[in-house]
Structures are given as C-alpha cells and as structure tokens.
C-alpha cells in the first residue's frame, strides 16, 4: 500500500484510490481504509480537506448535443457514409477503364441492360447543363452532388453534370437563385460564379442575385468567402449569417450590411416580402421576376417605402395594397405597362 504520510493535497487529489473515496464510488473497504488512516494521522485532516476540495473543484461543465442535433448529425453521417459507398463502387469501375473506347462500349452495353447509367455518365462528361426560367417561374434544381438550388424567375444556371462531391463544385449564375449547398465528407468547395464575384462555400444556405449589373449575396446560414472576379488579388471577404454584400460592375467598392436574410429568400416560398422597400425597388423586382413593367408618375414616388408581404402570383393584390397605402391610381396602359399615378381626389 502506498505510504501516504508525506502526501501533499495535490498528491492525494491525484491518487486514484483517494479519488475513488471522494467520488463516493468506493466500496466499503476503501472508505474504511481512509477513515482509519485519518484516525492514525489526525494532523493531516487539513490536507485531506483540501485534497477532497481539489477533486471536487475539477468539475467540468457538460456540453451535450440535444436530441435534434444527434438526429441531424446522424442524418449527415448516414447519408454520406452509405451514399458514397455506392458512388465509390460505381466510379471504381469507370476509373479502371478510362479510355474513350471503353466508355462508348460500356454505354452501348448498358443500353442493353435495364439501366442507362453508363450512357448518362459518358454523355454527361461532354455536355454542360443549364436551367432557365421565364417570367414568374420558380424552378427547383437538384445538383448531382445533392445540393439544392431554387432558381428565381428570368434566371439561368449552368453547371457540368459530372459535378462530383470529391472535387471543386462550380456553377455559373445569371439572375437570382437560392442555394442550399450540401456539405461533403471530403470538404469539397462549392463556387458560384457571377460576373462580378465568386461565392465560395463548404455547405450553407444563401441567396445570390446578379441582376442590374451587380451581384448581391445574402447569407442565411454557415460561412461563405467572396472573391472579386476582376480583383483576385484583393483579400477575400468573409460573410456571416445575416450579411448582405453587394458588388456593382461599375464600381470597385463593395457594400456590406446586416439584414434579415429571410426577407431576401422569401421568394423561394413563393412570397414577396417587403421590409421598408422603396417603390423603385419593388418596380425592379416586379420587372425582374414577373416581367411587369411598372412606371412611376414622378420621381418623388420612387423613395416611398412599403412593408408587407403578398403571395408571389398575386401581383394584382400587391398593386392594390400599394395604391391604398400611398393613395395611387393604377392605370393599365395599352402597351401592357402599368402606370402608378398620384390620386387627385382625397
């Protein structure tokens, strides 16, 4: 048995036998030992008190994930662990026979088989895919890596269909889209290219709008890094959730502010949400997404601010709300344009 007579408080506190006793996980013989030891060395009482206190003081705060986090983490794990297993099997056969000849041969072979995956694989290597939306149209696009893109009206997104989870994932956007990027185990980068900048992420949700010779990025969750297309040497811009960054084609300057990101992605829920939005901006949004040409009678109306929301396919209701809020008349022109003019009567 250890000789405890020269022990300091720290020595005691580090002794496993002593810790057992203090943490009351000790059996009766351990407790008996320490009680009788104390009787034998009564002058050590102070040291023992301090040692006990030391053991108690090493009391760590516990940080456990909640049930929801445990679930969502498992979702990510099982998705990626089991899914990539299947992917690996598929790609390992294609990498062995990389030659073009084999690819063609394989695709012919697979045509005979019920699944045309080989053909698709070969074909997709050659072609770029693009999705395009019309006035008032919102399209959900699922990328090959599992990331989700919601494409707003009058927008185009292009990408290579061989986009994989283990390499840099790149898409090109003109218009507006909301991204829900899937994180991958290999931490593959995901880059949205626009005319003005590159938005680089690992896995996150954000909105990109490239209309009117400017690119506007609003980050909902996660982290993204921006680099300017024309000034690659400039330090990258880091964004945190709630940040809005706007970059105009004509200016080198970048505007950054904090906003409620949900306002900017509300269109994905088929709603138009305005929060102190000016009439000029509303007119712009209607032109961009609905192809509605709204003209304001005079420039003083442009800065009127409107807050409220409306279903995206009820622009008639929005116009009605605007006319009531600002006492305006809605005049539908024969050209299809809509003119907002100040009401003359009270």
């Amino acid at each position: 048995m250890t000789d405890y007579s020269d022990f300091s408080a720290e020595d005691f506190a580090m002794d496993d036998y002593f810790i057992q006793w203090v943490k009351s996980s000790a059996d009766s013989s351990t407790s008996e030992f320490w009680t009788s030891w104390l009787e034998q060395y009564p002058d050590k009482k102070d040291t023992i008190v301090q040692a006990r206190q030391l053991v108690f003081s090493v009391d760590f705060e516990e940080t456990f994930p909640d049930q929801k986090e445990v679930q969502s983490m498992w979702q990510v794990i099982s998705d990626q662990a089991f899914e990539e297993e299947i992917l690996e099997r598929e790609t390992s056969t294609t990498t062995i026979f990389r030659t073009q000849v084999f690819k063609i041969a394989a695709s012919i072979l697979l045509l005979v088989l019920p699944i045309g995956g080989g053909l698709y694989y070969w074909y997709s290597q050659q072609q770029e895919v693009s999705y395009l939306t019309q006035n008032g149209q919102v399209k959900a696009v699922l990328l090959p890596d599992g990331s989700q893109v919601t494409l707003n009206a009058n927008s185009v997104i292009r990408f290579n269909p061989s986009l994989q989870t283990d390499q840099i994932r790149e898409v090109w956007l003109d218009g507006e889209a909301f991204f829900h990027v899937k994180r991958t185990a290999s931490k593959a980068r995901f880059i949205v290219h626009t005319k003005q900048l590159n938005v680089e992420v690992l896995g996150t949700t954000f909105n990109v709008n490239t209309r009117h010779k400017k690119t506007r990025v609003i980050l909902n969750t996660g982290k993204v890094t921006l680099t300017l297309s024309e000034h690659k040497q400039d330090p990258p811009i880091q964004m945190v959730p709630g940040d809005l960054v706007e970059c105009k084609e004509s200016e080198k300057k970048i505007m950054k502010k904090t906003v409620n990101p949900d306002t900017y992605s509300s269109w994905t829920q088929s709603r138009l949400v305005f929060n102190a939005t000016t009439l000029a901006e509303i007119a712009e949004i209607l032109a961009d997404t609905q192809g509605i040409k709204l003209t304001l009678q005079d420039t003083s109306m442009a800065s009127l601010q409107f807050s409220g929301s409306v279903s995206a396919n009820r622009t008639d209701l929005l116009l009605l709300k605007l006319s009531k809020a600002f006492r305006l008349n809605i005049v539908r022109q024969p050209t299809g344009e809509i003119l907002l003019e100040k009401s003359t009567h009270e």
Partner: protein
Amino acid sequence: MKDKRDVYKDRILPLKESDLSLWNRFRSGDREAFSTIYRLYVSALYNYGMKLSRDREQVKDAVQDLFIELWKKHSTIGETTNIKYYLYKCIRRKIIRNIEQSAKFLPDTGFTTENNYNPVSSPEDLLIDIQSVDQKKVYLNKALTHLTQRQREALFLKYYDSLSNSEIASLMAVNEQSVYNLVYQGLQLLRKFFPVEVLLFFCILSF
C-alpha cells in the same frame, strides 16, 4: 435459492456487449453496430470536443467527419477493446488539426491557436454565473478557466473520464511524467483560487 436466481438472471438479461465484439461487428460492415457506436458515444465525443474548441459547429463537423471516415475505412481499421478511448484519439486529432488549419488560413483575423484553446468566460457568462444558485459550482468553473488548455484537458480526462495516466499520455501524445506535471500544476493553480468561504463550506460538508 439465491444461486438459482443469479443463474436465471444471467440467462434472460442480455449481457452488455463488450467493446471488442461491438467493434468487430462494425468492422465487418454491420450498419446496426455502427449506429450503436454512434448513439453510445456521440454525447461523450461532443462533450470532449467542446473542451478542445468552443466552436459548436466545428465540433459537430469533426464528429460527423469522424464517423463518415470510420465507416469508409471500416474494413481496414484495427481492433480495439476500448472504443471510447479510440474515438477520443480520433476526435482530438481532428479538432486540433482543424484549429491549426484555420489559424494558418486566416492569419489576419487575429484568430490564433492559443485564443481558441483558451476560452475565457465572456462578461455575460460571468453574469449568468453570478446569478446561478449553485455558488459552489460557479466558483469552480471559473477557477478552471485560469488553467492552460493542456492542464484543463489533462484534468478533464483524469477526473471526468477517469482515464489512467498512461492512457492520457498516449492520447495527448506526451509522456506520463508530463501528464503528471500537467495535473499537478493544474491542481496547484486551482488551490490558489480557493476562497476562504469555500474552504469552510467543505469543512462542514466533508465530515
């Protein structure tokens, strides 16, 4: 009579599966064993991870990556009789590498490894601390923030997880003497922060 009941008990109650057997089932590609390991250890790994980094997302990422990698390598992984210890080793390596990497890539933000290693209570934390009813715990947790990251980690592994000194040594990639020193110095520092009232409190409680 008593003996009979014990035999009966053994027969009907499923014995807790040993780490070795659970691990081997996982290594042979059993998904159920894999998810069991996750359920058994996710909280402990998360808790330990939060002692190494204060960034919740970083810890979550590390736990996810760890399990994804485990499954991908399951057929080539070695045996273990102590799953928790094995996983602790993996998560530690991951988080420390992440911290070092982010420090390397963001040199201008003032984000240093040391900052991340030494989370200090914010004024809000302290306020909450003061308002908390459990005065004893308040003071204890505050004292712990005065230790270095490595001292704190060694103490956590020894007192919270009851790992042996040799296990702690190999986990933290140092020798046993260093573990001893870390713990000893940590305790010495803690003792400096004992206020008199707490001493009294313990005197009354202890005996």
